[in-house]
């Protein structure tokens, strides 16, 4: 039922056998998955299934206890979020994404500010460049952000998402992780974010899209994987599944049968 086996060597991102425990709690118990360039992969599962933890392992926030990550065919090991970003993985979080007191430009470039030399020597922020690039970029994603020097504090939820997405676009990420990006957005802003997810994929980026709204997921994803209690229990092309089937896996109803055949989803 899964078509994922066919993209193995060309996968933008491939993780295998990821395990992660916090103290006594085993949160991830050997998760393997892959996403191809230009593909949107939906990730669904119960609260606490381990979705966000898996994403944090991929984006360098947590280190896995076991397992490995391959980017475009090369093994990588991230010690910090910075390593992951440098390797081309951008993550868009629902919350905690922006520094409220900094402006839009500063946020998009945060952690990677362009530098020019003051008096040919002293490194300083290249504000001119930041503002220039940001203006062009915001035009490109058709966001309605009033002006790049507005502080993040003053933006709406959808505008905040747009800033985060602009960040991913600008840095030409290879993988973009979106963790429940639409949870608090109204229908129209949600539409916008979904459109942007597809736009990212159209630029050849592999997108991991986490969400709880199966309608949304089935609409925009190419493929969807289901997590249940720290395991991947299902992985399927969206065209080949239904809400009902996904829920069966999400609730562990299909778990016994899955455990037998788990090798299939590698």
């Amino acid at each position: 039922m899964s078509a994922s086996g066919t993209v193995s060597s060309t996968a933008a991102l491939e993780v295998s056998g990821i395990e992660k425990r916090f103290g006594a709690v085993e949160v991830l118990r050997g998760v393997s998955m892959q996403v191809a360039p230009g593909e949107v992969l939906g990730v669904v599962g119960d609260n606490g299934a381990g979705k966000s933890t898996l994403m944090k392992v991929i984006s360098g926030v947590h280190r896995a206890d076991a397992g490995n990550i391959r980017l475009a065919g090369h093994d990588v090991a991230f010690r910090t979020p910075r390593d992951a970003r440098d390797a081309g993985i951008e993550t868009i979080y629902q919350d905690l994404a922006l520094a409220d007191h900094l402006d839009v430009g500063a946020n998009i470039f945060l952690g990677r500010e362009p530098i020019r030399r003051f008096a040919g020597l002293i490194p300083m922020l290249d504000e001119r460049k930041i503002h220039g690039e940001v203006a062009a970029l915001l035009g490109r994603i058709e966001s309605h952000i009033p002006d790049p020097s507005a502080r993040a504090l003053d933006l709406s939820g959808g505008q905040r998402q747009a800033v985060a997405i602009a960040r991913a676009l600008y840095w030409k990420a290879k993988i973009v992780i979106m963790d429940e990006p639409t949870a608090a957005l109204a229908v129209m802003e949600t539409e916008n974010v979904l459109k942007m997810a597809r736009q990212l994929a159209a630029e050849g980026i592999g997108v991991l899209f986490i969400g709880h709204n199966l309608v949304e997921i089935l609409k925009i994803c190419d493929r969807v994987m289901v997590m249940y209690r720290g395991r991947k229990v299902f992985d399927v092309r969206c065209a080949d599944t239904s809400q009902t089937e996904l829920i069966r896996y999400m609730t562990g109803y299909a778990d016994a049968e899955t455990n037998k055949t788990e090798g299939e989803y590698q």
Partner: protein
Amino acid sequence: MDQRVAPKPEIETMPRGRAALRFVRQLAFALISIVVLIIIFGILNPRFLSAINWFHITQQVAVIAILAIGQTFIIATAGIDISQGSVVALSSMICAIILVDTHLGMVAAVALTLLLGAVVGAMVGGSIVVLGVPPFIATLGMLAIAMGAALLTTNGTPVFGLPDGFQAISQGTILGVPNMGWIAIVIALIAAFVLNKTRFGRYTLAIGSNAEAARRVGINVPRHLLMIYMLGGIISALAGIVYLSYTAAAQPTSGGNYELYAIAAVVIGGGSLFGGVGTILGSVLGALLMTILKNGTQLAGISSYVEQVILGIVVVGAVYVDNLRRRLR
């Protein structure tokens, strides 16, 4: 990336205007208060406006201003440093001992004292990022430790007999401004540059604004905080050196309450204890405001007891006006 379209001029200039406006607003309280005080004190005693008095105000503000600069960085990360006074005492003792009891010379004494400040800052920063102790507690601990250590250095006795050359730090003048004033000005300029124009400064504000966001974009938050507290320690040590030169004698119990003045200066200058905001100029103006208050009340013959009460009201008023402004925006 350099080949992208050049920005339209409106977009280039707008942010500057907006940021500048924000900046002026932040300083408004301190600036207006200072002007009002200058007028009042100038009327009460015209000598308040004399050149020599401003010379002394410059000397008197320098130590607090330097400390306020260090405190600005720390408060911008949503931290706080209540150990500054003790660290001033400890570093002035150490510096004096090196100057008087060894033959290492002035440069070495200054360098070693600054190193001590870095170590102290690293201990505080380490408690915060490694042990997970909140800044208030980490620096409360350091307050006690540094105070005890300062007393232990000479078993409580003051140190006298500093070399004459060392006094130049506070007493010498350039263009009529005392050197210790110049030190504060130079530190302020560098600090303002660092806070506003470099990655270090941007990360400082980003961490204070949202530490988790900063971490997720790849900023090494623990390392940055460690550096911030080391910087803070170095600045406190520098303040200790300037203080030593100014007082010409090292006393293990000096520096008391200096941290409170420094914190008050930051707050008066528009900084927020919740982090993410703060300007060097604002903090320096805050320090100046308090110094003018002290100096002016004495010249006007107002009791220093009353001055305390006024100071308390000014600190609370500064934050209130700041809130008000934000609400009305």
